[in-house]
């Protein structure tokens, strides 16, 4: 095995130089809750680990001037939960991030790692997609931004370019009458991987849905933005017909696998059920907002 080096730079520029120089055996470490398990199993054998937790920009949560938020890629779930305002503005994103693993894992695991791990079942990803989050990437050729749903490229793969690091998520402000929710189906109450995950963000005005986004996880090789489901909700009063149409749109985009957690038929059916339940929670929160 090649010698492993560990670096914990204090600046993003240093991290990018080191990561680019490390070539294709270099790995970025945020919380390490996936990376260390993959190293232990022999699935990855890094030559270089770049620990990004000493870089201020990647470990901070800040409210932006417009009322949105910027979340550093390495912010652990437990830290995000302690932010005084984030969970009030984006309760669905927070509940999704906080569903990742145990209390111990929450002390370390980040939304950035969850996204870059590339799992179709990552809990934070459908909620971030529904929220319309945009990620900031930085690499040897500079910075760029990408909508969250453009990041996954398939199981375990992303569209990050060689040498690029995920720096942060930017979430827009939520207007009055808007809110979000995330639900996942697992056979137990804790510590399991989503059979289906569904994030919904919507805006209500006088009882009519004026904007919506739907993210669906664990039912395809990548987390999906389901625009047809959102279109079925927009313009409606979230009545039974609209919810049925949105649920059907969710089922229509499912291309799941059969595995020990659920069959293709089960995951597809549950995708529609979760759309309805998640929409109901988001709508209730939106009314109270």
């Amino acid at each position: 095995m090649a010698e492993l080096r560990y670096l914990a730079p204090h600046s993003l520029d240093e991290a990018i130089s080191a990561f680019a120089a490390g070539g294709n055996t270099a790995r970025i470490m945020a919380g390490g809750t996936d990376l260390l398990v993959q190293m232990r199993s022999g699935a990855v054998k890094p030559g270089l680990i770049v620990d990004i937790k000493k870089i201020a920009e990647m470990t901070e949560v800040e409210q932006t001037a417009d009322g949105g938020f910027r979340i550093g890629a390495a912010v652990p779930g437990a830290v995000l939960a302690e932010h005084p305002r984030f969970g009030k503005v984006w309760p669905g994103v927070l509940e999704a991030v906080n569903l990742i693993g145990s209390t111990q894992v929450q002390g370390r695991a980040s939304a950035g790692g969850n996204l870059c791990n590339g799992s179709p079942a990552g809990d934070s990803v459908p909620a971030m997609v529904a929220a319309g989050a945009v990620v900031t990437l930085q690499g040897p050729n500079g910075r760029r931004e990408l909508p969250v749903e453009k990041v996954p490229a398939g199981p375990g793969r992303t569209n990050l370019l060689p040498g690029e690091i995920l720096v942060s998520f930017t979430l827009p402000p939520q207007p009055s009458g808007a809110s979000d929710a995330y639900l996942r189906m697992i056979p137990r109450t804790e510590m399991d991987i989503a059979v289906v995950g569904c994030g919904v963000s919507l805006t209500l005005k006088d009882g009519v849905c004026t904007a919506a986004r739907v993210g669906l996880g664990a039912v395809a090789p990548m987390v999906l933005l389901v625009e047809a489901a959102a279109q079925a909700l927009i313009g409606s009063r979230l009545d039974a017909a609209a919810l049925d149409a949105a649920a059907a749109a969710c089922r229509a985009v499912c291309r799941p696998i059969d595995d020990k957690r659920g069959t293709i038929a089960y995951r597809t059916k549950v995708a529609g059920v979760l759309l309805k339940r998640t929409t109901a929670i988001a709508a209730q929160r939106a009314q109270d907002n």
Partner: protein
Amino acid sequence: MAKLHVSTTVNDEPMEFLCEPNDTMLDALRGPLGLTGSKEGCATGDCGACSITLNDRLVCSCLMLAAEAEGQDVRTIEGMAEGEKLHPLQQKFLEVAALQCGICTSGMLVASDALLRKNSRPSEEEVRFWLAGNLCRCTGYDKIVRAVLETAADMREQGIRESWQ
């Protein structure tokens, strides 16, 4: 392979050790630091037997590189009792037999302590969710959950409030 030199604080004492870059914090605790109270159950972050706190945050030491401890504040089960005086959680676990084989116990205690420092009046549901990442194959959890709830009540009654804030 060049070893890394790490200076850290463990249970309020400055400590130094040498490690390989891919050693976990659990490897360092149980190896060069000689603190074998933290156990390795799964090595994949599922069982919680290796629970420690890092800068007052509950984590699995098997999911942390030893090199990350540089300049940080680590607390383990060995720092829980004050000399011969057991922490109220430790005393209660003994009294109500909230353990059998003991492999999960140090992780359970470290995790429960972290909960009570954050929330001095947890509900049963909150205790069960907080400890969902600590597996016990002996007790069926009920005695552990009761021990935590009773300790919380005792500490409130005695005005003992431990907090990191």
